[in-house]
C-alpha cells in the first residue's frame, strides 16, 4: 500500500496506467504545450518515489531527471523536499537501471555542492559503485576512501575499496582495506570471504607468511566459507607457492585445507542452495539502495561463477589424484613418510592410470624405504615393475630399494633389485652405482665369486668410472677372502701401482702382510708389518696391525713378543670383534703358560678401565673360569657375581645369561671342603636357590622409594628382572641336574612377569616352555616382544623360530617360512639353527615344495651334531617325500627310510609310531600285505607306542589285513 487515507485524490491519479502515461508524456517531448499543462513538480516527484517503492526504477529515473531539470531551470521545491535527497534517489534509480554514466553525473554534481552528512554518504556509495561498474576503479577507490568516514558505511566502504583497489591494480591498498575490515568484522560468511580475498591478494603480492597466516585463521572456521571451490583453488595455489618457497609445513597446511572432489562438490552444492534461497529473499526485499542492488548482482554473479567452477571440477575425474600427489609430496618432504605412503597408495589404488602414476610409484617406494618398511617397499617395487616395466623411474626405485633393503638387513631383496636394475637398465646413469653396490653387497654376504664378477663387469663398463679405484681394490679383496692369497697379493700390487696415493694404500699394505701370514711366510709378513708400523704411527688401523704382529710372533712361537704385541694392541682403539679376539688370544696364551693370575689381572684391568663395555660380562666369565681352574670356585662365584650384580636388573644386557649359566654350573657342584680336596655333600635345590638369591637379591630399602612414578616403575621393573634372573640361574642348576620338572616350575614362575622385565635369553626359554605347555597366545606375545625389542640380540632366533612354529601349526606356511628364514638370515641362528632349518624343511614339505624340502631334510639328517629327534624326523620326512612322489621305486626307498627310523631311532617314539604306520601303509601300497601285517603287529607289540593315535590306526589296519589274508588263504 502506497497511499494513506489522507490523500484520496492523489491515489486516483496515480494508478499505474496514469503513471505510465505521464511518464510517456514527459519523456517524449511531445508536450509542446507543456507550459500550458505543466504537471506540478511535487506530483512528478511523488510519482517517481511511488515507482521506486514499486521497484520500477526504470520508470522512476526519467521522472527524477525531469524534476532535477526543472530545478536546474529555476523551479523551487516545496518546503520539506530536499534536493540532496532527490539527487540521491535519482542517482540510485539510474544506478539500478545500469545507466551508470548518468548516476555518476548526478552524484558528482550533488557532492560538488554537499560533501558531508548522511545523504552525501548515500550518494557517495552510489558514485563509488557506479564508477567501479564503469571500471573507473582508481576514481572509485578515492570515493570509497572518503566514504570510510561514514559510520553507517564504514565497513562496506572498506570492503568495496578493497575490491576496487584490487581491480585498479593497487593490491597494497586492497590489503590494507581488507586487513582493517577483518579487525572489526564478526566471524561470519562475510568475514570468511574477506579472509579469502586477503589471502589471494597476499599470495599475489608474494607475502607468503601473511597468506599462510590467513589460511591458518580460516582453517578453524571452514564451515563459514560459502565459496568452497574458491577456497580449494586458493589453497592449492598457496600450497604450490609455499612448496616452491620451501615452506613445507605451510604448504602442508594449505593442501590439507583442500577438500577432495566429492566433498568440495557436495559442500558447494549445499552452499549454492543456501545462496539461491538468500538471493530470492534479497530480491524480494531489496530496497532502492545501490548497495542492495549491488549485493544482489554480485550474489548472482557468485552463484554463476561457483557453478562454472563446479562443472570444471566435475569434469576432472582425476582431481583427487592431483591433490593426493601434492599432499604426499609435502608430507614426504616434511619427513612424514608414513602419511606419504598412505596417500600414494590411495592415489595408485583409485587412479591406476593417471598422469602422476610413475612419479607416485617412485615416491611410494621412497616413502616405504625411508620409514624402514622393507616388505611394503618391495611390494611397491614389484607393482611398479608390473605397471610400468620400462619406466626410467623404475631404475631409481630399484636403486632406492636396494639401499633400503641393505639397511633393513634384507640382502636377498637388495640382490634381487640390483640384478634387475643392472640387467634391465643398461643405459641408466644409475647402473654404475648399482654395479658397485652389487659388488659390495655380494662381498658383504660372502658371495665373493659374484662380487668379483660384478667388479669385473664394472671395470669393463667403466674403466675410469668414479668407483674404479674401489672396484680394483674390491677385486683384490675378493681373492684374499677366498683364500687365493697369492693372486690377492698380485692384485693388491696392481692396485698400488695404479693408485700409489689411493684411499686404500695403508689397508692394502696391511692386507699384503695378512696374506703373507696366511701363506705362513712369517718373515715377509713380519717385515711388512714392521714397515707399516714405522710408516703409519697414527693410523687408526694400528691396533689391528699390532694384533697381526702378535699372530705372526705366535706363529713363530715367539710367545713373549706375541703377548707384548697383543697387549700393545689392547691399548689402542679396536673393533669389538678384534678386541674380543685379542683378549681371547691373550687368555689362551696365559692359560697355556699356566699364568692364570696374569689372565685374571688382565680381565680385571679391563673391567676396571671399561666398566660399561659389553665385554665386562666376558671378563667376569673368564675371571670365574680361571679362578675355578685354580680350584678357587667360591672366589670365582664371588668375583663373577660381583660383576654380574651391576647389570642384573637391566634386561637389555643379554650376555649376562651366559655368565649366569656359568655361575649355575659352579653352584651346582659341591664345594671342596678342605685342603685335602674332599668334596662337601651336593647342595640341595633349596640350598642352591638360597645361595643364588643371596648373590643377587639385596633388600630394597623403603627410603629409596621415589615420589616419581616413572622412577618407581623403572625400579619395579629392575626388581622383576633381577628376580627372574635368580630363578633362571636356579633353573639352570636344575637343568644341569636333569631335573626338568623343577626347571619348568621355575621358568613358569618367571613367565608370570611382563615380557618387558625379561632379558632376551630368558624370554626365549620361557616362551619355548609356554608353547610346550600349550599356552600359545602368551608364548606368541613373548616371542613377538623378543623379535621386536631385541631384534639384534643373539637370542632373537628363539623368537623367530617360535613364531615360525606357531604359524606352521596354524597352517600359515608363508609366514612360517619367513619366520624360520628370519631366524637364520636376520638373527644368525646362534642357538636355533637346527630348529630353524628343520622348520624351513617341514614348511616347504607342507607347501608341496618337495625338492627344496628334501635338500634341507638331508642337511639336518647328515649333521652329526644334531643327532637326535631332529634326525629321526628328517629321515622319516625324507621317506614321506618319496612316498608322496609314488611309484614302486620311490615307495621301496620310502620304506627303507621308515624302517631306518623305527630300527635306529627307537628312542624317539613319536617318530617311531609314525614310521611304523607309514611303513605298513607303504607295504600295502606295494601289495605286500603279509609284510604290512607283520609291521603293524610289531608296532602293536611295542608298549611304548600304546598311547599314540598311529597305533589305533595300525590296529584297525592289522585287523582288516588279518581278515583279508585269512579269507584269501581259506
Amino acid at each position, binding site marked *: 500500500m502506497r497511499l494513506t487515507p489522507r490523500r484520496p485524490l492523489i491515489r486516483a491519479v496515480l494508478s499505474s496506467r496514469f503513471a505510465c502515461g505521464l511518464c510517456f508524456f514527459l519523456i517524449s517531448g511531445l508536450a509542446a504545450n507543456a507550459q500550458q499543462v505543466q504537471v506540478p513538480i511535487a506530483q512528478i516527484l511523488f510519482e517517481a518515489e511511488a515507482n521506486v517503492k514499486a521497484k520500477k526504477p526504470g520508470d522512476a529515473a526519467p521522472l527524477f531527471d525531469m524534476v532535477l531539470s526543472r530545478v536546474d531551470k529555476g523551479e523551487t521545491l516545496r518546503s520539506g523536499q530536499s534536493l540532496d535527497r532527490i539527487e540521491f534517489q535519482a542517482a540510485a534509480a539510474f544506478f539500478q537501471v545500469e545507466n551508470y554514466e548518468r548516476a555518476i553525473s548526478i552524484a558528482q554534481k550533488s557532492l560538488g555542492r554537499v560533501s558531508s552528512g548522511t545523504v552525501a554518504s548515500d550518494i557517495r556509495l552510489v558514485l563509488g559503485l557506479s564508477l567501479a561498474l564503469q571500471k573507473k576503479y582508481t576514481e572509485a577507490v578515492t570515493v570509497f576512501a572518503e566514504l570510510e568516514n561514514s559510520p553507517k558505511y564504514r565497513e562496506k566502504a572498506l570492503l568495496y575499496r578493497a575490491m576496487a583497489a584490487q581491480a585498479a591494480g593497487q593490491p597494497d591498498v586492497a590489503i590494507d582495506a581488507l586487513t582493517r575490515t577483518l579487525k572489526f568484522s564478526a566471524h561470519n560468511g562475510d568475514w570468511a570471504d574477506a579472509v579469502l580475498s586477503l589471502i589471494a591478494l597476499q599470495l599475489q603480492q608474494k607475502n607468503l607468511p601473511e597468506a599462510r597466516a590467513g589460511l591458518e585463521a580460516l582453517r578453524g572456521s571452514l564451515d563459514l566459507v560459502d565459496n568452497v*571451490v574458491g577456497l580449494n583453488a*586458493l589453497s592449492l595455489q598457496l600450497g604450490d607457492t609455499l612448496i616452491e618457497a620451501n615452506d613445507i609445513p605451510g604448504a602442508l597446511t594449505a593442501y*590439507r585445507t583442500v577438500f577432495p572432489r566429492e*566433498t568440495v562438490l557436495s559442500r558447494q552444492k549445499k552452499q549454492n542452495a543456501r545462496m539461491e534461497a538468500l538471493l530470492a529473499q534479497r530480491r524480494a526485499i531489496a530496497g532502492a539502495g545501490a548497495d542492495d542492488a549491488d549485493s544482489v548482482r554480485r550474489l548472482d554473479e557468485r552463484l554463476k561463477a561457483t557453478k*562454472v567452477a563446479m562443472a570444471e571440477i566435475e569434469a576432472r575425474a582425476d582431481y583427487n589424484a592431483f591433490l593426493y600427489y601434492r599432499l604426499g609430496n609435502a608430507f614426504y618432504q616434511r619427513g612424514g613418510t*608414513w602419511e606419504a605412503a598412505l596417500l600414494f597408495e590411495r592415489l595408485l589404488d583409485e587412479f591406476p592410470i593417471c598422469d602422476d602414476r610413475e612419479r607416485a610409484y617412485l615416491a611410494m617406494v621412497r616413502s616405504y624405504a625411508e620409514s624402514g618398511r622393507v616388505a611394503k617397499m618391495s611390494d611397491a617395487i614389484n607393482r611398479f615393475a608390473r605397471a610400468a616395466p620400462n619406466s626410467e623411474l623404475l631404475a631409481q626405485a630399484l636403486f632406492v630399494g636396494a639401499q633400503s633393503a641393505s639397511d633393513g638387513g634384507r640382502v636377498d631383496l637388495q640382490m634381487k633389485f640390483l640384478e634387475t636394475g643392472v640387467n634391465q637398465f643398461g643405459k641408466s646413469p644409475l647402473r654404475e652405482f648399482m654395479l658397485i653396490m652389487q659388488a659390495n653387497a655380494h662381498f658383504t654376504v660372502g658371495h665373493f665369486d659374484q662380487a668379483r664378477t660384478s667388479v669385473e663387469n664394472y671395470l669393463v663398463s667403466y674403466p675410469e668410472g668414479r668407483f674404479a679405484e674401489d672396484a680394483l681394490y674390491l677385486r683384490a679383496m675378493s681373492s684374499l677372502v677366498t683364500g687365493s692369497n697369492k693372486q690377492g697379493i698380485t692384485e693388491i700390487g696392481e692396485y698400488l701401482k695404479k693408485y700409489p696415493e689411493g684411499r686404500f694404500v695403508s689397508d692394502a699394505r696391511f692386507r699384503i702382510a695378512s696374506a703373507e701370514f696366511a701363506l705362513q711366510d712369517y718373515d715377509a709378513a713380519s717385515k711388512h708389518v714392521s714397515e707399516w708400523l714405522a710408516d703409519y704411527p697414527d693410523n687408526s688401523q694400528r691396533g689391528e696391525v699390532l694384533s697381526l704382529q702378535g699372530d705372526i710372533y705366535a706363529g713363530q712361537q715367539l710367545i713373549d713378543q706375541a703377548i707384548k704385541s697383543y697387549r700393545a694392541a689392547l691399548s689402542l682403539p679396536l673393533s669389538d670383534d678384534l678386541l674380543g679376539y685379542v683378549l681371547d688370544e691373550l687368555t689362551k696364551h696365559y692359560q697355556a703358560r699356566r699364568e692364570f693370575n696374569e689372565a685374571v689381572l688382565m680381565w680385571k684391568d679391563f673391567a676396571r678401565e671399561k666398566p660399561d663395555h659389553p665385554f665386562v660380562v666376558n671378563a667376569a666369565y673368564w675371571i670365574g673360569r680361571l679362578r675355578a681352574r685354580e680350584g678357587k670356585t667360591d672366589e670365582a662365584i664371588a668375583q663373577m657375581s660381583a660383576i654380574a650384580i651391576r647389570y642384573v636388573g637391566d634386561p637389555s644386557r643379554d650376555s649376562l645369561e651366559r655368565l649366569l649359566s656359568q655361575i649355575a654350573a659352579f653352584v651346582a657342584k659341591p664345594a671342596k671342603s678342605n685342603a685335602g680336596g674332599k668334596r662337601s655333600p651336593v647342595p640341595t635345590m633349596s640350598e642352591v636357590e638360597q645361595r643364588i638369591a643371596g648373590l643377587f637379591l639385596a633388600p630394597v630399602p623403603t627410603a629409596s622409594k621415589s615420589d616419581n612414578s616413572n622412577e618407581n616403575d623403572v625400579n619395579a621393573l629392575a626388581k622383576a628382572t633381577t628376580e627372574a634372573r635368580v630363578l633362571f640361574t636356579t633353573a639352570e642348576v636344575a637343568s644341569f641336574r636333569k631335573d626338568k620338572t623343577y626347571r619348568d616350575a621355575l621358568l613358569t614362575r618367571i613367565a608370570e612377569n611382563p615380557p618387558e622385565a625379561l632379558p632376551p635369553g630368558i624370554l626365549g626359554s620361557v616362551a619355548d616352555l609356554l608353547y610346550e605347555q600349550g599356552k600359545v597366545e602368551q608364548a606368541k606375545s613373548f616371542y613377538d616382544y623378543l623379535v621386536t625389542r631385541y631384534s639384534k640380540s643373539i637370542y632373537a632366533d628363539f623368537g623367530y623360530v617360535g613364531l615360525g612354529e606357531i604359524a606352521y601349526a596354524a597352517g600359515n606356511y608363508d609366514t612360517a617360512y619367513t619366520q624360520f628364514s628370519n631366524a637364520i638370515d636376520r638373527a644368525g641362528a646362534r642357538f636355533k639353527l637346527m630348529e630353524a632349518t628343520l622348520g624351513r624343511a617341514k614348511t616347504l614339505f607342507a607347501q608341496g615344495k618337495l625338492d627344496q624340502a628334501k635338500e634341507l631334510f638331508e642337511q639336518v639328517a647328515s649333521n652329526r651334531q644334531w643327532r637326535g629327534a631332529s634326525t629321526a624326523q628328517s629321515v622319516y620326512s625324507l621317506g614321506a617325500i618319496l612316498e608322496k612322489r609314488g611309484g614302486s621305486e620311490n615307495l621301496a626307498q620310502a620304506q627303507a627310510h621308515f624302517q631306518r627310523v623305527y630300527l635306529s631311532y627307537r628312542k624317539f617314539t613319536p617318530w617311531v609310531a609314525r614310521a611304523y604306520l607309514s611303513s605298513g601303509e607303504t607295504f600295502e601300497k606295494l601289495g605286500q600285505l603279509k609284510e604290512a601285517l607283520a609291521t603293524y603287529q610289531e608296532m602293536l607289540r611295542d608298549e611304548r607306542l600304546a598311547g599314540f593315535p598311529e597305533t589305533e590306526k595300525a590296529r584297525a589296519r592289522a585287523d582288516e589285513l588279518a581278515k583279508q589274508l585269512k579269507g584269501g588263504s581259506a
Partner: protein
Amino acid sequence: MKFFPCIILALVCVAPLSAQRYLLKDGKVLNQADVVLRDNKLVQSIGKAESGGAEISYALTDVVRLDWPEPAEIDAARKLLDSGKAAEAEVLVTPIVNQFAIFPKQPGSWFASAALVRARALAAQTKTDAAERAAKDIIAVSVDPDIVGLAQIVLAEQQIRRGKPVIADAMLSEILRRHSSDEAEARAALLRGDLALARKDYEAALGFYLQIPSFYGSLDSLMPAALLGSARAYRGYGDSNKTERAFLELMNTYPASAEAALAKRESGL
C-alpha cells in the same frame, strides 16, 4: 591445472539467514518470538491481554520445517568436548537437545546435531549406557545419513568399551559401507586405530590413525586424537624419533586439547 582464482575476486556480502521461525503445513510462518510452547502446542497471542486479546494454538504436528540458525551452544559444547571438558559440554548442550526434542524430525531442527554432541559427551565420560541410549535416539529419528552414521560410530565405540572389539569392528565396516561422509570415515579410522593399537598391531594402527592428517586434514577437531594414537603406535613400533615428533606436534599445535595433557604425561617431554 587451472584453478579459477577469479572466483576469489568476486567478493560478495552473504549475510546468514538468522530468523527463528516455524513454518506450518498451511504455509503460515510463525516467528519464535511471537509464540510460546504450552501444552504441546504453539500458542500465539492476538491483541493485548488487558484489552481482552485472544490466543491462537497450533498443533506441533502442523510444524513442517524450522527456519533457525544453529544455536551457539552446540558449537560451544563441541569445543568444550574437544578440550576434554565433557561434563561441561553435556550440561551446555542438553537444554538444546530438550528444546528441539519436540521437533526431532523436522527439517531445520537442531535436535540430531545437539543430541550427537551430547552422546559424544556422555561417551567421553564413559557413561556407556547413557551414550548408547542417546545414540539410539538419534538413529531412530534423524533422517540425515551423515548424523546417523556418526551416531552409529558412537555405538561402535561403546562396544569397544564393553570389551567387544570384534563386534565394534564389524559395526564400523557396516557403517562405512553405508555412509561415506568425511567425518564418519575419519572417526571410524580413529576407532580402528584404537582397536589395532589394543591388539598391538602397531603398523595397522598407524595406517588408521594417519588417515586423519592424510585424507581428512580439514577436520582439525580429530587431529589431537589422531596424533596421540600415532605417537603411541610409533612407540609400539619402536620408532622413538617419530614418537617424540608426534607428541611434540600434538602439544605444540593443540595445547588446549585433552590429548595434549595425556601426551605430556606419557612422553615426559
